[in-house]
């Protein structure tokens, strides 16, 4: 009987397949496509409601935020291109009640292409390097670049940062390129004014960068960097990625050079210059059902180590605060080692529904931060619910953050 059923099943399978194919072709017959054209401009607006529980008092704190983002990128004449991107964030905080705004000029530059393989740029340029996910040692222009933190998610912080006023040239050849950039000092100090271009943050000193890349094989396309700034020996950088198999990518990002420790820089102490390395290396594995898992190890040789970090808060709270503020501005971690774990599940459970979660684990002070997001997207609208929790001892990296947990609901509309 079982054999009979199997034979019957096998006999009907091609018929089912033919029916399925006919149905699919019928759908295709009825498909109407509209001609979508590439646009020079893009706009979005985002509204967020934010509720946090403060660690010290268990009191709640409520924010609302409205953000507007605009970008424009067009060819204005043969060989000439203009790029512009800006974001404006407005916050409303309750208890204590206050309202504040921050504008971030992300880029505004003119580009000249005298030949297809030669490019020159002048203006505010958002230059970013690095293949790691949550910590980019070769992103040399990250210092003071973030004006408005709208999320702890490293992916969001990368999107919302200032450009640096610079002149940049690039030469390209088959499988490789050379980029040189010079960014002059234009102001002395950062300016917190809502609409200020904040040149003191991005152009507070003379800086330069040279980057070279060359495809060595199908597997390897390394990028070497050399960065210099006033008062510091040149820093070297390397970015490298390779495929381990069809589902796994390995990335390595390193920078190193003689420099003072972050603690000395933060407090303007006598220099303790030595060769210091920074490293971020990660592995991303993707399953067949669109789940990507990333584990990243991060090391900052200029940050404090275990004993010095443990003692810092106990010795002097103002010094601790000054150090934390400084490392946050230069986007380095306050301690030497941490892990970053991330899971991203595209079309999780049902279509258009994405789940993302990450955790930072500080292996020096054993504090951690966890973050989870559920996001549903329609054609032009995203709706997301985010939840973040900070845990650890009182003066640890994540235990010292004032919010114990934060919930955020946001809606983003793309025009």
């Amino acid at each position: 009987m079982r054999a009979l059923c199997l034979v019957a099943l096998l006999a009907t399978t091609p018929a089912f397949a033919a029916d399925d194919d006919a149905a699919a072709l019928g759908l295709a017959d009825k498909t109407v496509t509209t001609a979508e054209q590439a646009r020079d401009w893009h706009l979005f607006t985002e509204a967020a409601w934010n509720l946090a529980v403060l660690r010290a008092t268990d009191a709640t704190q409520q924010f609302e935020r409205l953000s507007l983002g605009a970008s424009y990128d067009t060819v204005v004449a043969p060989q000439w291109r203009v790029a512009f991107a800006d974001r404006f964030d407005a916050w409303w905080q309750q208890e204590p009640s206050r309202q504040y705004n921050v504008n971030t000029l992300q880029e505004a530059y003119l580009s000249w292409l005298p030949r297809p393989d030669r490019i020159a740029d002048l203006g505010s340029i958002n230059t970013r390097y690095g293949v790691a996910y949550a910590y980019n040692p070769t992103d040399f222009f990250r210092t003071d670049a973030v004006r408005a933190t709208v999320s702890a998610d490293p992916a969001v912080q990368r999107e919302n940062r200032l450009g640096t006023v610079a002149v940049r040239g690039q030469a390209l050849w088959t499988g490789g390129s050379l980029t040189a950039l010079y960014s002059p000092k234009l102001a002395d100090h950062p300016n917190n004014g809502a609409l200020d271009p904040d040149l003191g943050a991005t152009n507070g000193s003379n800086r330069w960068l040279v980057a070279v890349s060359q495809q060595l094989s199908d597997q390897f396309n390394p990028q070497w960097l050399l960065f210099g700034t006033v008062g510091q020996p040149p820093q070297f950088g390397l970015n490298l990625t390779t495929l381990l198999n069809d589902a796994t990518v390995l990335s390595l990002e390193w920078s190193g050079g003689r420099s003072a420790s972050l603690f000395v820089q933060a407090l303007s102490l006598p220099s303790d210059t030595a060769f210091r390395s920074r490293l971020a290396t990660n592995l991303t594995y993707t399953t067949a059902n669109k789940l990507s898992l990333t584990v990243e190890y991060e090391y900052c040789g200029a940050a404090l180590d275990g004993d010095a970090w443990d003692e810092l808060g106990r010795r002097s709270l103002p010094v601790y605060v000054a150090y934390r503020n400084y490392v946050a501005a230069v986007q380095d971690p306050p301690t030497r080692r941490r892990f970053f774990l991330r899971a991203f599940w595209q079309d999780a459970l049902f279509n258009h529904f994405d789940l993302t979660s990450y955790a930072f684990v500080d292996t020096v002070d054993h504090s951690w931060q966890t973050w989870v997001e559920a996001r549903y997207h329609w054609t032009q609208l995203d709706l997301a619910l985010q939840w973040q929790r900070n845990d650890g001892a009182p003066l640890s990296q994540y235990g010292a953050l004032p919010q114990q947990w934060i919930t955020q609901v946001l809606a983003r509309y793309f025009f």
Partner: protein
Amino acid sequence: MSESTRRPSYGAIVALWAALAPGHVTAAAAPNAQEILAASDAIRNPGQPFGLTVALIEYRDGKQTDSTTLAVYSKADPASGQFRSLIRFVAPPRDANKLMLKSGNDLWFFDPASKASIRLSPQQRLLGQAANGDVVTVNLAKDYKAELLAEEDTQDGERVNRHCYKLALAAVSPDVTYHHIEMWIDVSSDRPVKARFFSESDRLLKTAYYRRYQLQLGVERPTEMVIIDGLNPQWVTVMRYSDFAWREVSEQWLQRDYLPRFRPE
């Protein structure tokens, strides 16, 4: 000339009879399967660098769930003969101006919002149900060894019966999206008609129909591919090609460091 070649031998007569018998192909009479596949590639793929627009419309259970528009620029690698492609997202607005660079398994994704160029594994998908490899031009004859299984009639995407070569394609390179493929190619025109794509474990991943043939860049080419998911046939992707044009695709474009610069118009 020898005696044996002047007069048909008994063996040759048997071979001729076998070759003419419907649905049965012998090695002696078989056309070269690899040449059939290469001829079919030449119909799908223009012989010079080109650009086109791809509209991907996804259906689930008969309802449209997604729509994506891509601008694709392709150029064959003079060394390998395989195509390398730059794909620019045009719509929806959420994804506009994102870029994908694909050269074999070397796959990069650039997001203009974060200025980040991220290396992807072939398993990471950016296009809903369609594999990244589905939207780019591929010379199958470069990546697969073809074997002629049979000649048979099959229904094409327009529900017309076509007399086809049925080829079995086995991957010769690990840098491919599908482990093996069954492909039906029109005997009279070398047009690809239908293909079934399989995993290494012989699981049917998808079925594709090549249809809506139109004169594009000098050759009658398919301007639509209907992809039916192997696991759930209710998941259907319609890929519609338009705006075919010869395009200058510079060698310098086809690298990670050019992605932030790419602006072809």
